[in-house]
């Protein structure tokens, strides 16, 4: 199994979720995070002070997927969240050793 971590722009969340739904992935965990990257230099203006807000709000998605579905999931996230502008984010794939569904104690791909 794989553990997919995606950092996306917040307003792309609904689109990504719909995209994943269309390929049958209906479970994920989302976190509000602050991203620091090339997209730096966005300035916010407070009383004329142009603060260089280096950390921008992003959404981090974490999705555990069966190996077979991994590429598809990455593809869907990529296409749904791409605007072509800087700051679109990244997708990371890690190896997942084990998964357990708390309610039923199912393990492995059944638990996803």
């Amino acid at each position: 199994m794989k553990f997919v971590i995606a950092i996306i722009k917040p307003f792309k969340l609904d689109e990504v979720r719909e995209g994943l739904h269309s390929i049958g992935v209906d479970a994920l965990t989302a976190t509000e995070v602050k991203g620091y990257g090339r997209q730096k230099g966005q300035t916010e203006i407070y009383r004329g002070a142009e603060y260089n807000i280096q950390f921008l709000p992003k959404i981090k998605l974490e999705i555990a997927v069966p190996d077979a579905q991994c590429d598809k999931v990455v593809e869907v996230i990529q296409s749904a969240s791409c605007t072509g502008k800087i700051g679109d984010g990244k997708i990371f794939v890690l190896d997942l050793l084990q998964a357990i569904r708390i309610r039923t104690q199912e393990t492995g791909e059944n638990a996803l």
Partner: protein
Amino acid sequence: MITKIGKSARHAGLAAAAFGTSMASLPAMAADAPPAIDTGDTAWMLVSTALVLMMTIPGLALFYAGMVRKKNVLATLMQSFSICCIMTVVWMVLGYSLAFTSGNAFIGGLSRVMLNGLGAGISKGSDVAFTMAAGTPAATAMTIPESVWMTFQMTFAIITPALITGAFAERMKFSALCVFTIIWSLIVYVPVAHWVWGPDGWVAAKVGAIDFAGGTVVHINAGIAGLVAALVMGRRKGFGEDDFSPYNLTYAIIGASLLWVGWFGFNAGSAGGANGRAGMAMATTQIAAAAAGVSWMCAEWMKTGKPTVLGIISGAVGGLVAITPAAGFVLPGGALMIGLIAGVVCFWGATGLKHMMGYDDSLDAFGVHGIGGIVGALLTGVFAYGPLSATDASPEGVSGSFHQFIAQAESVGITVVWCAVLTFILLKAIDLTIGLRVTRDEEMEGLDMSLHGERINS
């Protein structure tokens, strides 16, 4: 040459209240019987007191707290709230007496220490209206009980040091703040208040400059003290580099709104009663605040492409500051001009000037209150309209003129110098004894946790 700030006009406001609008008090004044209070005037001054208190807590507390980082929100609220508590006691014990009783030209007397004798005017069946400095040539008759006058003035003594805290937010020790508040109010605020509003202050004795509701005593005083403090204490760690964006501007808007509403008590209350001058002061206050909000917003919109929430509320507060010395003396058109000018100038003060000079006036206590106060004091000399500021002694009142403008400028100068010098000495003295500033680690951790052991959970 020494200029005279506002007394005659100020007292004119009171005198108008006493003689003009309340029929009940007229006969009483004529006879030897002590003058009775006017219930309408008293009602309005009771309300004004509540409104000015609301300006500090929660108004100013929120206005400032909305602009700091999350780790300093509670500490910033704490500054205004604790100053409210501390100044009440200081004013009651000593401040009121030194400011508003007869003494000499430089400081009042001790006859009202601990508010001794304040209850004397209340007796079954006939409350006596307050006559400031009764029995002296400077006697000024009012139509309200002394207790109301004392409490109304107390709320001014509270908000002035609270305004200063904007300049050194996010880095001052709480113990230093307490000590600073007590001493500053007694050596800077109280004397200036006595010179200007007290019955026999030296500045008041030589009529010249006018100040309706405290542009000099409150706003220039606080703004200059803030500037000095920002310079003495230095910048916050990370200034200009780290992300200092406000945690939650919602609080700042609530604060600015309550400041605006409360300012009706500050300005219209300074008429001393519910009369035509109070009505006009309310109207000009509203107009100047709105005009300054619009003008800051437009200046910013043109310069940066986006009108910000922080901009429009800062502009409105700048307009409120600027109209303060003028409120009861100018016509609506003058108020509109004062507001439009103040909005643009404060925008420059809080952005251009500050960045040019490089000091860290964290929340623009000087940029808004200092600059706005000076703009307002000067423009009062331009837009004052005689009939509104008329008194018995000077029936034609004061009208805008070059001569008046110069008088206003001199009064500003006196306040600036006195305040700057004493504030500087006081801050240095505190720094050498208990220290002014938190440690670097405390500053990094945030004052909420390091000074007060509390945090916002969210």
